[in-house]
């Protein structure tokens, strides 16, 4: 376990010196710092409650957005004036579902993936060997979440305003509640994405503080 820790080029003997370095850090920072007194075997990294709280918030936010978007569905009837001959206009039942749009499907899938990753990262928060994979996964998850929020928000905006130049009509005047629920899910996911960004910055700050150059 100790042999894997070693600064390249600084440490001629490998494992033994690395263990000395960690105990030296405990020796210097044992006065009131967050590091627990390092015994011979216990190497659990200190768990920052702020990071855990943010990760739980990201977990709940992505779960809520994915569930709200996946349960979003509306059936309504649309009146079509069939012409002057038929007196009563035709009423056609139409449905709006989230699967009708690739952007919303990508949004639900991305939120589900970030939820699964956050759950795994919460479970692995005590293991020292999981710091780097969690950081990599956090970066990728944050980028994925932001792109999914952008795509779903843009699709919602197209539905609300349409686009006059390419003759795309707005649909949210027909599907009002559907659009509202979808945009609520997008807003919650956006807040969760910002929380993920802050969490990533806090993680990097923690690594920077533990660095020997701080």
């Amino acid at each position, binding site marked *: 376990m100790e042999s894997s820790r070693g600064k390249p080029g600084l*440490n001629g003997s490998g494992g033994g010196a690395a263990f000395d370095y960690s105990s030296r850090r405990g020796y210097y920072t044992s006065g009131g710092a967050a590091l627990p007194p390092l015994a011979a075997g216990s190497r659990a990294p200190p768990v920052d409650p702020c990071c855990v709280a943010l990760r739980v918030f990201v977990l709940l936010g992505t779960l809520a957005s994915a569930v709200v978007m996946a349960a979003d569905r509306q059936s309504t009837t649309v009146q079509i004036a069939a012409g002057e001959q038929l007196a009563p206009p035709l009423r056609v039942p139409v449905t709006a579902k989230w699967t009708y*749009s690739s952007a919303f499907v990508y949004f639900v899938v991305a939120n589900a993936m970030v939820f699964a990753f956050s759950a795994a990262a919460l479970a692995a928060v005590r293991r020292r060997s999981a710091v780097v994979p969690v950081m990599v996964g956090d970066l990728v998850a944050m*980028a994925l979440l*932001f792109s999914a929020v952008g795509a779903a928000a843009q699709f919602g905006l197209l539905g609300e305003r349409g686009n006059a*130049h390419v003759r795309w009509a707005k649909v949210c005047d027909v599907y009002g509640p559907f659009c509202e629920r979808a945009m609520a899910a997008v807003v919650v996911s956006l807040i969760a994405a910002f929380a993920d960004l802050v969490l990533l910055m806090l993680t990097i700050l923690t*690594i*920077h503080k533990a660095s020997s*150059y701080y």
Partner: protein
Amino acid sequence: MATVDGTTAPSSGGKTATVASESGGGRYGGPPPPAKCSGANLALRALLFAVSLSALVVLVTAKQTVMVPFVIRPPQFILAPVPAKYTHSPALIYLLAALCATCFYSLITAISSVRLLSSSACSAKTLFYLILLDVFYAAVMASATGTAGAVAWVGLKGNSHTRWNKICNVYGKFCRHIGSSTFLALIAAIVLVVLAFLNAYSLYRRSR
């Protein structure tokens, strides 16, 4: 110093601990030697600048005018020119703004990492600020890519449920420009993520 080495010797093997105290004496005695910023940093930032600049240029030159028939009365129609520009969609304007910001940022940080390479010392504070900014710009580029990608996808495939027709069969050149710009923006976002990871990993290695 000697007491620390002495007390921890039994758990890691006395021989290796004494070797460490003999050969690594300077390491414990003074500040650790400064580590160099890697050249991969500069190369990736130059790549980022190239990619974002080319995406910007491709987006701004996406212009096409097509003659579309407009029916006045059933047998008669006139051909009118209908333009397509990137300003017609708010998503593409957002992509333009994000690409401008990323281009400017990559230029500044590429120049500063040239200076860091030549001064042969990479301070952790600089690295820390670079990582924070890299992460922030990665988020911005990812969201811009997702937004422009959604519009490009609807333009390419249309959406039968909302009765939105696809436009890429009419505007071929415009769609190619928008598609390549979105793809280049995706590459820029990936390069930013890789940069952030590389710098964060090297910061992490210094703390081990």
